[in-house]
């Protein structure tokens, strides 16, 4: 299905240019005042989305698992970070209590026990990875063990996300109900409302994005990545060759959940709010759109897609609020139908198309044999 060499030839330099631009050039331009604080902050948000998109790509583009629950892992990571940030507000909240505002509002006098350890940042950071990772481990174990795959896996992850969102909308969970967490003040002592803090957060996000991409590049180039792609293309053959495909899939599923959770944890301090509205299947599918538009099965694609679609969204929801969903939906349908490799795959597609038509012309000259039916079946 994929011819890796052709794509990776352009990918490598593109990746390096992108990394330098995002990590060094953007913050520098911000310091010199060429880029506004607001713009940098928005880009920080885009890059968090990009990290999530890479995790989806690793699952879907490389392993063939379309998970509609990445938004769940993203939001869970965000919630873990949000719990720490909520406690860091301290007495600055509107009720001047040590408890987070919503707990006071619900009539609680004492901090629930499971909130207590979140005073410590290292613990919260650990939980960012642990909680979504564990959820993915349990769910993935159950799903892969009973060989649930393809669309069934998608539908089940969709149901999982739906159930979790229902749960997080409840006040009884003591996670803020439908308002979620907001009104954060400080992170590790730094004021979150200062542009300099936001700049540091942006740089951290950009660096982590580059690190994630580098890690994925290494992983997909390794023997593991080969098996991964083999599972995508024909799981049964891999299974019959003696590989425990379920374990491979479980590993990659947990890793991707953690990557998405990390993106969520970076997202929350930059955006300043997290609520169960982020946890829906629609959000997952939107992220899948970024990957599909950018080009799945490549590592640049998801980043291009996430940043591109979100930049377009920011502009279009202001300029043409009514048309935005029509544009997004329409573009998505067209890309899925006619551009399976997305934007990044366009050059390759054009090359293929030109080569094909050239072949056809030559064939026609040689003999007037009608085309075989095989072509139609492929489409």
């Amino acid at each position, binding site marked *: 299905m994929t011819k890796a060499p052709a794509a990776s030839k352009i990918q490598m330099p593109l990746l390096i240019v992108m990394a330098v631009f995002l990590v060094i050039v953007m913050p520098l331009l911000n310091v010199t005042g060429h880029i506004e604080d607001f713009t940098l902050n928005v880009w920080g948000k885009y890059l968090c989305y990009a990290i999530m998109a890479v995790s989806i790509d690793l699952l879907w583009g490389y392993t*063939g698992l*379309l998970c509609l629950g990445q938004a769940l892992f993203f939001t869970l990571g965000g919630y873990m970070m949000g719990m720490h940030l909520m406690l860091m507000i301290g007495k600055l909240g509107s009720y001047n209590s040590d408890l987070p505002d919503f707990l006071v509002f619900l009539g609680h006098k004492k901090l629930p026990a499971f909130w207590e350890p979140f005073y410590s940042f290292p613990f919260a950071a650990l939980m960012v990875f642990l909680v979504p990772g564990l959820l993915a481990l349990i*769910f993935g174990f*159950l*799903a892969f*063990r*009973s*060989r*649930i795959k*393809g*669309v*069934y896996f*998608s*539908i*089940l992850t*969709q*149901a*999982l996300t*739906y*159930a979790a969102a*229902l*749960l997080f*909308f*409840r006040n009884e969970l003591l996670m803020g109900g439908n308002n979620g967490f907001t009104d954060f003040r400080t992170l590790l002592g730094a004021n979150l409302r200062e542009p300099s803090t936001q700049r540091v957060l942006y740089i951290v996000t950009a660096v982590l994005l580059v690190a994630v991409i580098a890690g994925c590049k290494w992983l997909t180039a390794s023997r593991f990545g080969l098996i991964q792609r083999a599972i995508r293309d024909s799981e*049964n053959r891999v299974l019959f060759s003696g590989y425990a495909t379920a374990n491979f899939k479980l590993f990659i599923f947990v890793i991707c959940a953690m990557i998405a959770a990390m993106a969520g944890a970076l997202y929350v301090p930059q955006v300043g709010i997290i609520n169960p509205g982020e946890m829906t*299947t629609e959000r997952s*599918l939107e992220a*899948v*759109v970024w990957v*599909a538009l950018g080009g799945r099965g490549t590592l640049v694609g998801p980043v291009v897609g996430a940043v591109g679609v979100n930049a377009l969204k920011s502009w279009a929801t202001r300029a043409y609020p*009514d048309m935005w*969903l*029509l544009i*997004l*939906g*329409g*573009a*998505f*349908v067209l890309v*899925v*139908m006619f551009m*399976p490799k997305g934007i990044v795959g366009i050059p390759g597609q054009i090359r293929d198309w030109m080569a094909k038509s050239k072949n056809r012309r030559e064939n026609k000259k040689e003999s007037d044999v009608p085309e075989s039916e095989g072509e139609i*079946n492929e*489409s």
Partner: protein
Amino acid sequence: MVSPTITRNILWVSCVIALLFCANKISAQEESVKKKIAAIIALGEGDEQTEAVLALKKTPSPEIVGWLEKWKQGVIYIYEAPDGTIIPVIMGDKIEGTRKTAISRFSDDSPVLDESGEQVGVGKYDLDMADTNSKLRRAMSEVESLASLADPDPEERIKAIVKSAIGQRQDKLPALLELQKIETESKVKRALEESIALINLRSDDADKRLAAAELLGKRGSLAAFDILKTIAKESKESGDKKMEEAALLGVKRIEAHISRINAVGTLFRGVSSGSVLLVVAIGLAITFGLMGIINMAHGEFIAVGAYTAYMVQNIFGTGIKLSPFGQSITIPGFGFGEFGMSLYFAVAIPLSFIVAALVGLLLERSVIQFLYRRPLESLLATWGVSLVMQQLFRLIFGPNNVQVSSPVWLSGNWTVNDVVFGWNRLFVIGFAILIIVATWLVLNKTSLGLLIRSVMQNRNMAACMGVRTERVNMMTFAFGCGLAGLAGAFLSQISNVGPSLGQNYIVDAFMTVVVGGVGNILGTVVSALGIGMADQGLQQYLGNPVIGKILVLALIILFLQWRPQGLFVTRSRSLD
């Protein structure tokens, strides 16, 4: 103390009978009723007036109730004539040329004139209202409850009977006992027995109390539940062992009755919510189960059906104004009025099927036909379609929910032995059965069904046998979408119709099909009913709909561990 009350009441009960059988005489008495009340009002506040009102018990009638209501509302005023007589009056029109209002006598509606024959005019705040105090109002309500006990409508009588048992006042008992003697309607009789027993619980006679507790327990009377509990407690304090035991036994019996009601009620609600799932999922069972197309826009096809019902309703009514893309379009209506409103649904059902099927046809030709071999891509593309469709609904019909009215016959209910069966839920179940039978007939008894099944079993072989698989695909998809449209018309009767109507059902619908076993209609039926029952059962048990729903989803995931391919597996030798 008891016997004189009874003799007095025999008197008015004979009047009750007279009322029931000689209704035409009432109108002849009307004049006198008004005069009587006018006289009572003229008496002025005090015990005398209260007594006079109580005396009306002898001739209870709806007429009296109506005028007493007017009195309570403060529509009747008191005018003191220059000669000192007090005349109850009602305000009339303004007298022309003055700022005063004409008044007329309450007793016979004749205008009040002064000595020179001119109309008497009063200022807005000159007169006092005919006052009532709490004692008087209590007397009035006694009269009213007696009057409603004599109501010709048995439902009204039952209401009055139940009401008269509240507070368990002994003085209400004679009226009920008298009514029991002449009552013929069995439903009313049962209500009477219960009410009498309820009042008897506070009787001075110990045997009567015991008998009442026994009867109420056997009947499983819900109204007696709390009262028996209190009585058991009181008897324990007062050391009345026998009564305590009787009351406790009664409580136990009623508890058993309540749990039986709940079980039957839960079962019924489970079947009906399973039917909703079934109706919503049956279209998906065709497109997803038989064709392997993951139609994420399935929910939007449901909305297409619902909006079709909305359009039909408006076209039968007064027409509708739409403003898609800033253009204003007015669609005139037939203006059928009441008659149209009761019939529009019969037209909306087939139309919603046709419209949704046509939209489905369009989608199949433009998008789906390219994706038959790529199920994951079909999921994504149809999600894009669902975004577009939702936004189109928003642009055409507005972002808010629209009003689709239900025919009147859907709003009642049917009560059997304290279990309430709502008509709309019964309708849901009937509709689901209808759709299932229709789908089964189409798939198994028509040539289209034969073609559909053959293509789904082995596409290539069917093609070799000369089946035009492309066309069959098209028809199958359109059929599935049409069923979704039907579901929409149906949902418009029981829930809100808005742009995101479909989103509320899509996850449940997919779950239903997956649990049932893909490619098997019977599996969908069984799983829909199973999920519906589990959902309602857990809701009843936990008392929390959301947690119940979450548990059901968790149960489904665990269930798929046990049977990864669903309840009914379509056996095949092929390896995906």
